[in-house]
């Protein structure tokens, strides 16, 4: 019997999040599997059409419901469960959306969950990081009829477009709770690339000294077309907002170029960047642990070096 994999799409109502294309890449590691993408939205048509183009997807389920206006885990999870019948592996991205929803799905299904899948050896055997990436664990689901998983997006390339999967409207008849209500979301508007998908990321640490100090990073980032990130210490100190945090409890990223500026490199930070292609470290402390993982290290005063780099690249 071939494997049937269901992927819970992440989107903002109009645009499919790239994390979904990464989940599809993960699922494609199971040869011969049917890969369905479920889009729960108020009006799922536009997002479903984007999902249908992802190479490897065999069908897209569009589930319209006015209750899906905000992606509340308590509301999404029962809908996922309601369509999950034929599927033996149910995946979502290991983003704050996916982590929130999928474990609730697993709870409702009484299914074991494998978090942060970094490699999929079969539909029941997975590799995942534990202890902030200090160990890699291989687990095998032992006879459970359904397994739930979250996909560590930094471990997978987005599956390319080029497919044309059939779209199917689905309706489910399950009671949805009203005990959880969306109030607001605040996010700084930025014209810079998205931190999670940017090819280049420049991150700052506590050594930047203030929110003002971060300005030299923004300036260099704009020249390079880069996103800006921050260490936990910089976010804790109020130099940067929480959505910029990179690391074990922030965003796990895999850019082509990662520049760590004034970041000492706590293990919790390193776990968020170790899939970066090239890591550059600039720090005045030559003994900082960041230099152990950096491909190119430069010991010196960041307030001189960063503007000089900007000048040199013209």
């Amino acid at each position: 019997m071939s494997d049937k994999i269901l992927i819970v799409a992440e989107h903002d109502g109009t645009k499919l999040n790239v994390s979904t294309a990464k989940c599809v890449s993960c699922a494609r590691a199971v040869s011969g599997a049917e890969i369905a993408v479920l889009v729960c939205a108020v009006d799922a048509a536009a997002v479903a059409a984007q999902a249908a183009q992802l190479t490897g997807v065999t069908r897209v389920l569009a589930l319209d419901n006015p209750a899906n206006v905000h992606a509340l885990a308590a509301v999404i999870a029962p809908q996922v469960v309601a369509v999950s019948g034929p599927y033996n592996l149910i995946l979502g991205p290991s983003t704050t959306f996916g982590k929130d929803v999928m474990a609730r799905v697993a709870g409702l299904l009484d299914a074991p969950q494998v978090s942060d899948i970094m490699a999929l050896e079969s539909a029941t055997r997975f590799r995942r990081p534990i202890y902030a990436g200090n160990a890699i664990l291989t687990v095998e689901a032992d006879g459970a009829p359904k397994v739930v998983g979250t996909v560590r997006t930094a471990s997978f390339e987005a599956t390319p477009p080029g497919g044309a999967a059939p779209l199917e409207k689905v309706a489910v008849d399950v009671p949805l709770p009203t005990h959880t209500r969306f109030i607001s979301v605040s996010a700084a508007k930025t014209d810079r690339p998205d931190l999670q998908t940017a090819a280049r990321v420049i991150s700052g640490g506590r050594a930047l000294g203030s929110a003002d100090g971060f300005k030299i990073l923004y300036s260099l980032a704009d020249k390079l077309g880069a996103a800006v990130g921050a260490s936990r210490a910089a976010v804790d100190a109020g130099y940067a907002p929480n959505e910029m945090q990179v690391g074990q409890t922030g965003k796990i990223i895999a850019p082509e170029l990662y520049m760590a500026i004034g970041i000492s490199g706590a293990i919790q930070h390193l776990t968020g960047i170790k899939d970066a292609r090239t890591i550059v470290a600039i720090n005045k402390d030559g003994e900082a642990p960041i230099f152990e993982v950096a491909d190119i290290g430069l010991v010196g005063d960041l307030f001189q070096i960063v503007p000089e780099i900007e000048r040199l690249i013209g």
Partner: protein
Amino acid sequence: MKRILVGIKRVVDYNVRIRVKPDGTGVITDGVKMSINPFDEIALEEALRIKERGGAAEVVVATVGPADCQQQLRSALAMGADRALHVQADGVIEPLVAARALLKLAEREQPLLVILGKQAIDDDNGQTGQMLAALWNRPQATYASKIELGETSARVTREVDAGLETLEVDLPAVITTDLRLNEPRYVKLPDIMKAKKKPLETLTLSALGVEPRQRLKLLRFEPPPQRQKGIKVKDAAELVEALKKKGVL
């Protein structure tokens, strides 16, 4: 009584350098310092602050695990929890088993909130809170950085990928904590003495009617692949040159 239930887990201390056993059967924990999972410590701190503001009358701390976990329950009592519940269990405890045990405790204790860490820093699963909320059929507010408790509902600000999201959840609810919710207090020596006299009840999974299922076989532990040693450059010009040579600029 207005009560908050806090779930904690005994884990290898945050500062310990993790090493995988040469035979790949686990990580080395012999003789290693153990602590309350830092996110759970934040959960307990928040419960204590809510109680100190008059939002709750009692803080009950609970864990599922082997006998040694009582050390961490005593630490939690020293921090200020009123009483502790130890669900004795050996071997691997999967998040669903922990969630089922917490569900039984929640049904018994009838808390207005269950607060726990968003993930444990050993297995990094991040599942137990959501699973408990699902099994309990109650709201969940994960990754909390601010909790405002009302009479029948709570407003919770969550750290999400997009920024900060605020939800309103009816009580009782499950909340999981993120790093910036608070900074846990230090325990003072007299509190450690006092904690020895606070009630600590021992239960078992079977007495709670929870089956200790393990459905994920742990096949192999490996150290992570190491990055190749990099180069040092002496100034910005050399750095830019090196980046160009690598083709990333």
